[in-house]
């Protein structure tokens, strides 16, 4: 394994160990996104036609809210315990920190989604367990995690940190949410790969840009 991959792995491994020991992020995010889904089902009524029309929307709103919650837990504990200074003092580059944190966020969100999607399919009897929806979900989650990691590191240094993150994060991830909802909608209504390819392209473009740009400017956020 080459040196920078090893460092990225070190950050990721640290986050995984912390998560395994505290179960702070996955459990709270899971419960929260289930609650979002339940609240939406009450709000819209459980009419079959309504559920089919709003199912992808509900799913992605749940993921977006879950993303905000998980991202808030990425840097706030580090800051509270003075761990961020420790990481910055260690011989790990800012880039490795960015990718490590981004991967751990992606991993935690995917872990939550792996549970949420089957539960969703069960509760509402919609065919969301589908390779197209799974691919869209993973690609969307990468975009969420990339731009979210940058803003999470930024928000933690502001006074109203829990509020700054969603206010920054949600407008910027709007294209992913739109594209993911549209792609899921078309997959749910029986569309094939050709129908969702243009939406996948949008999410892919977003992923590439929002991994590259935050990677380039991340060190301006964490410099002391």
């Amino acid at each position, binding site marked *: 394994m080459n040196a920078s991959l090893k460092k990225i792995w070190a950050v990721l491994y640290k986050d995984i160990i912390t998560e395994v020991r505290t179960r702070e992020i996955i459990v709270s995010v899971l419960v929260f996104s289930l609650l979002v889904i339940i609240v939406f089902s009450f709000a819209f009524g459980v009419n079959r036609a309504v559920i089919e029309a709003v199912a992808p929307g509900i799913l992605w709103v749940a993921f977006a809210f879950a993303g905000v919650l998980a991202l808030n837990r990425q840097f706030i504990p580090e800051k509270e315990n003075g761990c961020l200074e420790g990481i910055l003092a260690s011989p790990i580059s800012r880039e490795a920190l960015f990718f490590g944190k981004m991967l751990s966020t992606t991993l935690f969100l995917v872990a939550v989604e792996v549970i949420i999607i089957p539960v969703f399919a069960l509760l509402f009897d919609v065919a969301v367990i589908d390779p197209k929806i799974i691919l869209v979900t993973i690609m969307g989650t990468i975009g969420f995690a990339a731009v979210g990691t940058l803003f999470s590191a930024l928000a933690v240094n502001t006074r109203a940190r829990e509020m700054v993150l969603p206010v920054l994060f*949600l407008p910027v991830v709007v294209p992913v949410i739109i594209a993911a909802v549209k792609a899921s909608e078309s997959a749910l209504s029986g569309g094939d790969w050709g129908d969702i390819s243009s939406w996948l392209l949008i999410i892919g473009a977003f992923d590439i840009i929002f991994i590259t740009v935050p990677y380039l400017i991340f060190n301006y956020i964490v410099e002391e």
Partner: protein
Amino acid sequence: MRILGSKVSYGLLGLTAVAVLVSLVMIFIVVPTEATMGIIQRIFYYHVPVAWVAFLAFFVVLIASILYLWKRKRKWDVIASASAELGVIFTSLVLITGSIWAKPIWGVWWTWDARLTTSLVLWLIYVAYLMVRASIGEEEKAARFAAVVGIIGFVDVPIVALAIQLWGTQHPGAVIFEGGLAPVMLATLLISLLAVTSLYALLLVQRVSLRNDELRLDDIKRRIEMIREEGNG
């Protein structure tokens, strides 16, 4: 640079005043009423230039943000923050004039159309930009973080536009570049464009010099505080 003290400011003030007057005469007296939309179409001559200036303002934020991160000169941050404030104001004006125009023509104040949604997202991103600035006490850190948001925010907008374009648009396209405008209408639009752009430039120069004065005042206050503490100690 003093507020309204420099030749640049007076020049811009004069240009803005003349251009605004001429454009108002053009809009309300010279230009004929548009055939299908009627009187409401006259809002076009300010709606389009204001939209253009909003975009220009955010482009200035992008450039000044990049220059700030690169050179670390306070002046770039001052320009970026001033331009972001103006951009938010001009975007608000675009959304308001657009709604006033949309109500009689489309029958609704708002529709989730590509152009409209992008403008709203743009507005939200730069409101967040101003919030980030306001919620950081340290001046240097606020500047650094704001620059990061200024860059990401501008990069995001073409992607939003691309994403939403796919589900169709109701807003008319670039009529100006397609030559679909009568010469007198084009002339009016260009004069309004000049008026609004020079208004933006004037406000930017004023805001920058005001901000510089604020910063200078802060420095003086800090120095007085230091001298006082030395006197006590």
